[in-house]
C-alpha cells in the first residue's frame, strides 16, 4: 500500500474516531447523531434483515440509468461538438455557468410534465451529470496530438472510425474521470429528487426517517449511499490508474 493511501486511510479513520469520541462524550447529542459504531451496527442489522432492499434496488437502478444515459449522451455530444467550433464557442458560457443553475428547481415542473414516477428523478440525474461528461470529453479531445489524427488519415479512417479507434481511446483516462463525475452527479440527482418529493427510494426513506427522528434508519442509509459511492469511485479510480500506468503517467 502506498504512503499516500495510508495517509488517506489515516485521515478517514481519524475523522471517524473523532466523531465517535465527540458522540460518546456527549458533545454531539444522541438526537443529532448516534456514535459511528452504532450507525455501522444499525447498517449491518438493516442488511441482515433485508430491510429497504427494494428501495435500495430501485434507487440504484435509477442512478445507473441516469448515469448510463448521461454518459453515452455526454460522450456523443462532446465528440460531435468537438467538430463544430462555432457551436462549441456559443455553448461555452452555458457550460461554464451550468452548475450555477438550480436544476432541482425544475423538479416540480418535471413532475407536472412526467408525473410522480421515476422519470423526473432520472431526468434530474441526467441533467446534472451530462454537462460534466460533455466538458470532460471535450477536454480530452482537445489533447489528442495532431500526429495521431494524421495517422488516422494515412490509415484511411473515416471520421467515425477515427473517433472510435483513435481519439476516444486516447481520451480513455478523461472518459474515466467523466464517469466518476457522472456517477456522483447521478447519485446527487436521483437521491436528492427522491428526498424532495417521491413515494419510494432511498432518498424518500431518508427524508421520511428524518421527519420522524428515526436516526436508526436515516444514518445507516446515508452511510450506505456513502459506501456505495466510494466503492464505485474506487473501482473507476483503479481502472484509471491501470490506464495511466500503462501510458507511463502517474
Amino acid at each position, binding site marked *: 500500500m502506498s504512503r499516500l493511501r495510508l495517509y488517506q486511510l489515516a485521515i478517514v479513520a481519524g475523522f471517524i474516531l473523532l466523531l465517535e469520541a465527540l458522540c460518546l462524550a456527549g458533545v454531539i447529542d444522541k438526537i443529532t447523531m448516534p456514535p459511528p459504531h452504532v450507525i455501522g451496527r444499525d447498517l449491518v442489522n438493516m442488511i441482515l434483515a433485508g430491510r429497504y432492499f427494494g428501495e435500495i434496488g430501485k434507487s440504484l437502478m435509477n442512478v445507473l440509468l441516469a448515469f448510463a444515459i448521461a454518459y453515452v449522451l455526454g460522450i456523443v455530444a462532446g465528440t460531435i461538438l468537438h467538430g463544430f467550433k462555432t457551436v462549441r464557442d456559443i455553448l461555452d458560457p452555458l457550460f461554464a455557468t451550468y452548475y450555477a443553475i438550480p436544476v432541482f428547481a425544475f423538479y416540480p415542473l418535471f413532475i407536472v410534465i412526467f408525473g410522480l414516477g421515476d422519470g423526473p428523478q432520472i431526468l434530474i440525474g441526467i441533467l446534472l451529470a451530462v454537462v460534466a461528461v460533455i466538458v470532460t470529453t471535450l477536454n480530452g479531445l482537445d489533447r489528442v*496530438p*495532431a*500526429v*495521431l489524427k*494524421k*495517422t488516422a*488519415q*494515412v*490509415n*484511411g*479512417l473515416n471520421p467515425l472510425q477515427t473517433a472510435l*479507434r*483513435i481519439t476516444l*481511446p*486516447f481520451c*480513455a483516462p478523461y472518459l474515466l474521470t467523466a464517469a466518476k463525475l457522472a456517477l456522483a452527479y447521478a447519485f446527487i440527482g436521483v437521491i436528492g429528487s427522491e428526498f424532495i418529493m417521491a413515494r419510494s427510494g432511498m432518498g424518500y426513506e431518508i427524508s421520511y426517517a428524518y421527519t420522524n427522528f428515526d436516526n436508526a434508519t436515516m444514518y445507516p442509509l446515508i452511510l450506505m449511499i456513502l459506501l456505495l459511492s466510494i466503492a464505485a469511485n474506487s473501482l473507476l479510480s483503479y481502472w484509471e490508474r491501470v*490506464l495511466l500506468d*500503462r*501510458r*507511463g*503517467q502517474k
Partner: protein
Amino acid sequence: MSAAQVTLRGVTKVFPAGAGGEPVHALGPIDIEIRKGEFFAVVGPSGCGKSTLLELIAGLTAPTSGEIEFEGGAIKENVPDGVGVVFQEDACFPWLNVRDNIEFGLRQKKISTDEKARRTSAVIDMMGLRDFTRSYPAQLSGGMRQRVCIARTIVAEPRLILLDEPFGALDQQTRLLMGDEMLRLWRETGATVFLITHALDEAAMLADRIVVMSARPGKAIDLVETGWPRERDSRIVERENFGAMTSRLWKTLREESLKTMGRAGSGA
C-alpha cells in the same frame, strides 16, 4: 528504377490568412520527379515548406495550384493506397501494445486475420521487436517507439514511404543506427523512400538523390546525385567524397538559411 513514381508539376501551397494576418505563401512553384525505388531526400532551411511538401505528396493537404501524381493517378486530398508516412512526432498509440500498434497498419486492409497475423509477425522480426510485442509504448525508448511507427507503416507494404524527419527527436548514435535500419528496409522492401530532413549528413548518407530547397516559399534550387551503391550503410561517411557532398549541400543551403535568419531577425 528510372520511371517516375511521383511527379509534382508547378505545385504551390498558400495558406489562407489568419485573423488580421496575410496569406502565407509556403511553397513553390516546385517541380520534382521521384523515381520508382530510389531513396530521395529533401533538405532546406527551417520554415521552407519541407513538411508541407511531404503532406502534399501524402494527400494530407491539397495544393493551391499545380498537379501531383502518384503512379499516374492524381493525388488530391486523400492518402493514396500504397503510400505510408512516418512522422517526426511520436505517433504510437499509447493504449495499444507493440503488436497491436503494428497490426493497426493493416486494419483497413481487406485480408484475412491469419494473413494479418503473419505479416505483423514478419515485420516484428524484421524490425527486431520480437522481445517487446507485449510492451506498451511508454515502456520503450524514443528510438524503439520510432521503430514501432516505422513497422506500422511498412506492415501495409507501401510502395512509397514518406519520412518526415523521423529521426529528428533521437540522439546522434541512434540516428545513425536508425539510418542503417532504414537503408536495410529500403533494400528489403523495394519501396521508394522520400525523406525530409534538416540534417545534411543524414541526407548525404541515405539518399540517391537530394533536392535542396530555398527559403520560403520553398523551391527546388539544386539537385544532387550521390551515386552511392545500393548496398550501403552509415560507414559511407568514411568515403573521401562524402565531405565534398555535404559541403556542396551546405554551400547552397547556407545562403538560404541566412535569408531565413535575416527574415526572422527583421521580424518580417
